[in-house]
């Protein structure tokens, strides 16, 4: 969920000026915000599955340290979504294990 009004930060003034495609679904986002923020705002919490036991993982540190949030972005696996900015038209998929190169259609 977005924080649209805030007692100290004021109202959100940024425009939803980007659309990203996450596992085939379109999501409204803000150019330049971290991918992880766009996903959380859409209620998506599971970003990847572990290699051996297929356990779900989401964000943990949000500063690019822990690599729990990695996904496949525009065909590149292991992208830390908490520090990678959104660009309009990005294609993002939940990463299975170590991930694969290339965009799956």
């Amino acid at each position, binding site marked *: *969920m*977005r*924080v*649209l009004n*805030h*007692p*100290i*930060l004021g109202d*959100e003034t940024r425009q939803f000026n980007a659309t990203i495609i996450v596992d085939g679904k379109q999501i409204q986002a803000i150019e330049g*915000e*971290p991918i*992880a*923020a*766009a996903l*959380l*705002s859409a209620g998506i*919490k*599971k*970003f990847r599955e572990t290699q051996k036991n297929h*356990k*779900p*993982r*989401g*964000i*943990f*540190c*949000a*500063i*690019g*340290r822990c690599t*729990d949030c990695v996904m496949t972005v525009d065909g590149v696996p292991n992208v830390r979504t*908490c*520090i990678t*900015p959104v660009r309009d038209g990005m294609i993002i998929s939940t990463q299975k294990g170590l991930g694969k190169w290339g965009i799956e259609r």
Partner: protein
Amino acid sequence: MKTTDIAVIGAGPAGLSCAVEAARAGAQVTVLDENLKPGGQLFKQIHKFFGSREHKAGIRGFRIGQQLLEETEKLGVEVLLDAAVYGIYEDRLIAYITDGKDHTIKAKKIVMATGASENALAFPGCTLPGVMGAGAAQTMINVNRVLPGQKIIMVGSGNVGLIVSYQLMQAGADVLALIEAAPKIGGYGVHAAKIRRAGVQIYTSTTIKEVLGEEKVEGVIAVNLDEKWQQVTGTEKHFNADTVCLAVGLSPLTELAWMAGCEFTFIPSLGGHVPIHDRNMETTLKGIYIAGDITGVEEASSAMEEGRLAGVACAESLEYYDENKALELKNQIWDRLDALRTGPFGEGRFTAKLKQLDARRQLA
């Protein structure tokens, strides 16, 4: 190859203060930070800072960051962003990555101001999406304006746990409870009172027994602890939470210091293994300095003073200041640092830092 007088790694309060101080003396300074925005931890802190006026108490954290940035700009400090430093090699050669490409810079002096990272906690369900650092939640709400969840359990009653709980409420979330394993609250009374007034129950001598859920957090079971920190069966409480925030301390980010070959000492109250340094903030390696949370986890005010100290010391060793001028400035900074390390919360840090300096003396 790119060269500079002083390379500062990390653009948090420590790194920026160091850069300002050294640039003011006339040195050429380059700051590197892996983030796209400088400021370090300050940019997620929307609360007014505690401490004294000269340490900017009463000013909100992110404004202090903005002020520091303006000063670096005025003084012509070069700030390289998206610059993740991954190695320090012989003769102070720094390797970093920008936009996926390798770069190097050679500096006469290096100051490491890399800060700290949040600790994790192990319990069944601790890896489920929805379990995260309190700082991560704080970044999401205050920097990115996105709530990571609606119904929060906060673990840890230090200042970070107390402040982030309040900020989660300001952003519109419900904080169901704050739980603390120790028998008493760790942070300042004023912060605890603030969240209690807002209706948050604080449970001491309590921990997480288990986090429920298959694909994400769907509930939390808390349990009481006895005097020996053992779980008391039959005291379980269930919370209908979707998010668990861990505020269970920070550890200094020391990888670069280990790699460079600095000597360390072990001081648990500072966050574990910390690089040894002298009163100039110089490590056991000549020309390599440290400042801020990397030297032991404290707070922004002390991080800024340590940064200034390192800045003055670097400027002195590059002969931008003579010995007398430098000593005068350093003494002023030490007086302020000593003042910060007093009182019921500061005293422990004072003794811990003394131990760290002693370790240096013993080596000498």
